[in-house]
């Protein structure tokens, strides 16, 4: 996916694998939360890249890797060409400033002990964004305006005095204040109501279009991803199942898992009822990824309606189907 001649991608993830547990004192094999994941994210044009997957798919692990909360067991994560573990002090500060996050729960992102002001003071101080008090206030006011809030309405209040919508917007304003290049949005709308959901998604679009901020939109909800996303990667049990343009994947899913996923989204029309009922063959196996040693074959084998013998041998590589669109499935091997 690298484009020759262009500058280093903003974020490059090369074969990142993340294993949990399974130390030499443990009798259990390690849990592979993310397996050989690769991704290139370019600075311009700014894009919203969706990482879609269900619980246990490894999407939150990926978010934690990109934010530097954890380091990959194998592989590399490069920010502007430098490995995250090799950043010097100055580069580290830049990376901290330029890669920001919005989290899922608008109730938990504020320390209940402090006024809202504290959230802004923290970043102001650590990144030395302003020279004096006046400039500081102006910057905060400006950031709040982007999300449609006013400083005198909220800065002196405690978190519990704000509505869920205000809180989530304050978090976006906080991220924006740092002028980040990339925002990792970890399920930013799955705990909020319909009206608020639209507002947050709209702000994300505006930040992308007007301020050139890229997003890693991490979600289990394909419909909102379809509404705002540019590219998409669908994860299944730590493996990239399908990757490509959001529209392509949603309209024309290729991987049997992604097809199943999209078919399971309830259609908001009482006249179009779900087609024939589905049965999960051996549902327990969904959890037993590592029960009998790491499987060599395709992780979806047990549930796949098209399974073939070859699928038991190896995890299928990503096979390009059309343009950027690629699928990890032997069905598409020519």
């Amino acid at each position, binding site marked *: 996916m690298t484009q020759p001649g262009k500058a280093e991608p903003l974020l490059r993830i090369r074969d990142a694998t993340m294993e949990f547990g399974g130390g030499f004192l443990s009798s259990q094999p390690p849990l592979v939360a993310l397996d050989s994941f690769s991704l290139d994210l370019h600075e311009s044009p700014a894009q919203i890249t969706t990482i879609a997957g269900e*619980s246990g798919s490894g999407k*939150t692990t990926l978010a934690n890797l990109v*934010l530097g909360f954890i380091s990959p067991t194998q592989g590399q994560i490069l920010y502007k060409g430098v490995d995250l573990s090799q950043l010097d002090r100055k580069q580290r500060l830049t990376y901290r400033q330029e890669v920001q996050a919005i*989290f*899922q*729960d608008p*109730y*938990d*992102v504020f*320390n*209940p*002990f*402090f006024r809202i002001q504290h*959230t802004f003071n*923290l*970043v102001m101080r*650590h*990144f030395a964004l302003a020279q004096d008090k006046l400039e500081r206030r102006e910057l905060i006011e400006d950031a709040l305006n982007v999300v449609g809030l006013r400083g005198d309405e909220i800065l002196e209040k*405690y978190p*519990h005095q704000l*509505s*869920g919508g205000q809180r989530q917007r304050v978090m976006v304003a*906080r991220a924006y204040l740092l002028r980040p290049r990339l925002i990792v949005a*970890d399920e930013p709308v799955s705990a909020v*109501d*319909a*009206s*608020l*959901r*639209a*507002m947050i998604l*709209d702000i994300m*679009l505006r930040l992308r279009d007007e301020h050139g901020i890229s997003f890693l939109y*991490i*979600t*289990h909800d*394909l*419909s*909102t991803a379809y*509404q705002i996303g540019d590219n998409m990667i669908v994860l299944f049990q730590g493996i990239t199942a399908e990757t490509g343009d959001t*529209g392509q994947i949603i309209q024309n899913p290729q991987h049997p898992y992604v097809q*199943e996923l999209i078919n*399971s*989204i*309830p*259609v*908001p*029309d*009482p*006249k179009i*009822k*779900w087609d024939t*009922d*589905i*049965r*999960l063959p051996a*549902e*327990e196996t*969904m*959890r037993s990824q590592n029960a009998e040693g790491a499987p060599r074959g395709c992780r979806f084998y047990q549930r796949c309606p098209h399974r073939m013998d070859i699928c038991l041998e190896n995890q299928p590589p990503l096979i390009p189907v059309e343009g950027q669109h690629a699928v990890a499935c032997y069905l598409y091997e020519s």
Partner: protein
Amino acid sequence: MAVGQRTPDDASAPAQGWGLNTWDSPWLNFKFLLGAGIVLLILLFGLVGPFFWDTDLAYTGAGPLNKPPVWAEGGLPEHPLGTESNGRDMLAQLILATPSSLKVGFLAAIIGMGIGMALGSVAGYVGGWWDHVIRTLSDSAVTIPALVVLVVIASYVQMTDTTAMALILALFAWPGPTRLVRSQVLTLRERSYVRMAHLSGASALEIMFVEMLPNMLPWLAASLTGGISAAILGATGLEVLGLGPTRVPSLGLIINQATTNAALVRGLVWWWLPPIIILMVIFVGFFLMTIGLDEIANPRIRQFSSTRRERTAAGELPPVEPVEDGTAGEEEAALEVDDLHVHYFTPRGEVIAANGVNFSVRKGEILGLVGESGCGKTTVAMAILQVVQPPGRIVQGAVRIEERDLVSLSGRDLRRVRWRDLALVPQGAMNSLNPVTPIREQMADAILAHENIGRAELEQRILNLLNDVGLPERVIDMFPHELSGGMKQRVCIAMSIALNPQVIIADEPTSALDVVVQRVVAQTLLEVKERLGVSMVMIGHDMGLQAQLVDRIAVMYAGNLVEVAPVESAFAEPLHPYTQLLIESIPSIRERKPLNVTEGLTHDLRDPPPGCIFQFRCKHVERICRERRPELVERDDDHLVACWLYEPERHSLIELEEA
């Protein structure tokens, strides 16, 4: 994980807004203040005493021997609390001994707390081998019998002053705080605000002291007060045994000397009793502080202790008069909810979570109850089941199954009705099953509580139920943790139909599940309904799921029903502006459409506006909407809506009123 989190739903939200959030005055806890006052008084006695009384009398022994206190026969005014066998003044001794005993306690507990905070935060924050080592150490330290070891140490170490004593006691004062701080740090570090601080460039120390510490203060304080009294107890124990510093007065030493001089036998009550009384008062003071602090740290304790009061208050409610309404009587209803009012009595005012909710569930239908969080849908479900949690209370209304009003039923009658007539499929099944009992027993319990049947029949019945929800028979011997989320939820469905109920209340039954599993569970519910002809109330916020599952849909906004209609006409032709908004804002995977951005709930639930509840967000708002609340009226075939738009006479109505 993303989907597993329960959204703070409904007006019961104070549950998360209390405690630390109401930072206005959490320390104004009566027990804490009373305890602190007691401790302060004792401390003052020791601190101020020397200014009013000659404390040298504690050493000199110049006075007369064995004199009782001044109020007893033979007492002397110059020795108000009497003297002992060496002629030393008791009051002077107590004035000196009290602060020194307190000092040992404070010092030992503070040293222990300091060590605990350092070790605990390293263990919790750094983790890995550090955590391993520290945890093993502190866990094993807890199992050592402290007093025995103290006695051994104290017999070898010559203690000259209280500081030495405190240091030795601190050996046993650190494991508690260490374990506390470690667990607190482990919990707090996963909190989003701590991660946010990390992203804001805060250092580990700053995160520990600025972000985490204030949020564990009440816990730390409770641990400290508990630690102080434990240390005083330990110190006194050693002193009584004569193992403490012998030149420094202490309460334990007084008791020690009294016992060695056989004060008990000789009837010198004023010698040994006063130090014991002072110790008791100190312990009571610290105990009150500790439980007060516990309540400050866990506001739920206080909530729980107020539970009883609220319950009795609910029991004294006047009988509810039946209200006639248009919805009943037309078709056979399995469940009727009649003019239901539920209020939450929070410290910050009365939240109206359900305001005159009226609907009925017909036999064999699924009624969807939808709305955004805080709209009161879960409150209505809880009210139907008669399990509204305090500070909430049904203040008015009736819930009827077969003409019986559940609101007026007694506890025992209610238990009989639950499960048998009315069953619940809870939200997040993973939390509602008992993790330590196999599925067989959990299901058997539910059945046997209401029916008396033999073993073989019971077994067959359970297997049939599992089969009904599409689970393999071997699930019967499995434990909840061996099942996936979807399977657990299906076990809950099997339990809910175990007694052939008339009505099942399903509270967001699929909200914590992945889409594929959600679909399987939803289809299980549909099959169960088809096969058993049971009626259901399906609480939810996912309009897509509602479209797939329900027969009729009831839309709630801020405690009020705004529209009730067959699902087809509700989606094809939603009448209420709020329903229109809900349907328009469903994200689609069929077409990309512009986002429909609106404000969320705009008014305070404690203070609903007069007139229409939706007026602040409505595009079509008119004058009458601000003045008079629209009633839920049938505007179309079986399609009810509470909106003035569909009242052609609305303009003349308001003119009429003015005239």
